[in-house]
């Protein structure tokens, strides 16, 4: 595996480390808390925290849509939160959002009236391939990624 990764030059194509983690407004997979109107209003869209230098290099401005591409071939479309909260070369996406798939809102797939108020890209679809196939709950929370303007 190591050899293959080096041959494919994975590090060059995906220069940014992607971590995922929590938001204070939502809990766990987020479906329940994203259906709570007061919490949903506070965080309405999934976003990637990207360092100001990385954003400048890629011409990404605050709250632009960006594609986050990972070695597994997944692409997720999220907003760009340009900040210094993450160091250069690192990015962070909360994992409470779900309901989009590769940039498309799957609102119509939800049974009538059961869709949460706020939906977004699920970061777990993009993080590394070690995952439990039933619950999509991945082994690790990080991967390499590249972020481009949408």
């Amino acid at each position, binding site marked *: 595996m190591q050899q293959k990764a080096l041959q494919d030059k994975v590090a060059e194509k995906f220069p940014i480390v992607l971590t995922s983690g929590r938001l204070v407004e939502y809990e766990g997979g987020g479906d329940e808390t994203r259906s709570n*109107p007061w919490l949903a*209003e506070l965080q*309405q*869209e999934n976003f990637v925290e990207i360092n100001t230098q990385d954003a400048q290099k890629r011409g990404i401005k605050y709250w632009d849509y960006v594609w986050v591409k990972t070695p597994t071939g997944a692409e997720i479309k999220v907003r760009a939160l340009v900040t210094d909260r993450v160091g250069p070369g690192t990015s962070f996406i909360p994992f409470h959002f779900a309901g989009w798939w590769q940039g498309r809102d799957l609102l119509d797939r939800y049974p009538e009236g059961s869709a949460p108020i*706020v939906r977004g890209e699920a970061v777990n679809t993009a993080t590394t391939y070690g995952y439990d196939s039933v619950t999509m709950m991945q082994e690790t929370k990080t991967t390499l990624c590249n972020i481009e303007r949408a």
Partner: protein
Amino acid sequence: MRVMLISAVAAILVATGAAFFLGQEQRFAYQAFATTGARVTPSSNLVGPRWTGDPDVPSKSGQITPPPG
């Protein structure tokens, strides 16, 4: 004198036209501050059923008719 009346009527006509146009431009706060895709079910406490801020309009029966746009 006739011209003055015509001009007054014309002014009022243009004014009502403007009122209609400004009405179109109007958006409720729950539309303006909800991002695309957020499925908001507007509640009407504090702002009244027609989201004008005066709740003395009958609250329970009044249906919220969001303005277009």
